């Protein structure tokens, strides 16, 4: 199966197999004014299978939040068909407006217009702490 290479844009590689569409939706690529391809179940020596998204357009990509969704993803920035940068993602130190605190006693459950902010508490166990009420959140994935 042939899919054209990217002129200027991104190749989002090493996406966990089966979650490409989720990443596509998160990045709101359905609204992107450029060519986008999701390639599913590509054979991978590292992971067995993986998904890939190719974006032929220089649109903003939120690598911070993408790292939270899947820290194994690699974002390849392409310019004029050449690899400009290879970004290895990691869990972000701060998450803003990505998830919401589940503590019903937290001020974020009632106060409108404030950021939903979390700080990374433990990288290994993927624990984040709500900056308002300190509740630990663990099972995001």
């Amino acid at each position, binding site marked *: 199966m042939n899919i054209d290479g990217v002129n200027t844009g991104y190749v989002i590689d090493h996406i966990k197999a089966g979650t490409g569409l989720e990443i596509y939706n998160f990045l709101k690529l359905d609204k992107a004014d450029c060519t986008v391809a999701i390639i599913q179940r590509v054979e991978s020596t590292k992971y067995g299978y993986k998904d890939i998204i190719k974006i032929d357009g220089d649109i903003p990509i939120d690598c911070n939040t993408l790292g939270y969704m899947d820290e194994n993803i690699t974002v390849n920035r392409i310019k004029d068909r050449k690899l400009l940068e290879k970004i290895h993602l990691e869990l972000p130190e701060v998450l803003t407006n990505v998830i919401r605190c589940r503590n019903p006693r937290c001020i974020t459950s009632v106060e409108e217009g404030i950021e939903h902010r979390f700080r990374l508490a433990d990288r290994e166990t993927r624990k984040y702490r709500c900056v308002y009420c*300190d509740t630990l959140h663990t099972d995001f994935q």
Partner: protein
Amino acid sequence: MGDHRNLINITDLSAAEIDHLIEIADDIIADPVKYQDMCAHKKLATLFFEPSTRTRLSFTAAMMELGGNVLGFDQASSSSTSKGESVADTIVMASCYADIIAMRHPKEGAPFVGAQYASVPVINAGDGGHFHPTQTLTDLMTIHRKKGSLGGYTIGMCGDLKFGRTVHSLINALLRYDDIKYVMISPEELELPDYIKDTLDEAGVEWKEVRSLDEAIPELDILYMTRVQRERFFNEEDYIRLKDSFILRREMLDPAKEDLAILHPLPRVNEIAKDVDDDPRACYFYQALMGKYIRMALILYLLGLK
């Protein structure tokens, strides 16, 4: 907003700053006249989105003894919150009228939100089951006055150690001081949360859990009693089952040390029997008095007057 200091969590203050506040409070006790006009023409806004007799009265008395004025409300229904106003808007409005704000709110993190919008210092006067730093300052001040030091004793903490925010805050504050042994006295259902136990382990302090007050009393220098609070439970049955778990009675003090100091953040319901009040080791009303002095010191410090 602004470059003022706030007090949201007890750890916002360094150990040196806490020592400084205690020094000021000691000086206020020694010479109250010197301080009686220090906050003249200053206003404290007490924004209490849930009722609290002791904390609000203590802040009010503190500001009045400094010669300042107090304005505010003591329940959400008296504020524009009942009309749907946000915490952020209420705080911005209060900043226009007051030089310093003491805020209590049932939602955890509300004073932190307030502090981000305020143009004057914000003091967290309790946010749900989360933080209550001025209670911790009160506890530290009482320990200092009764023991002459903030380290070098065995402290027992009894009652609701799971939801008891005063206990969690006090532990975090005491971990900065040396040579303290901790005895945690609670039923299994109300024992310390794991993350606080981890903190104790990481700090390398000596601590243990016991299931009976009688067993712990003889070795204690300080006994910190707490109330099992109905509002911290989602389930009424759990509250009823556990509320009378640990009650201190006069006869239980027979094997206790002569200089034991019994503390309680108050209000007390039935966890300390009335006949304990006459025992010289009962310090909980003295503690309430210390709460006023340390809040006076805090107001002066946050206003940059001391």
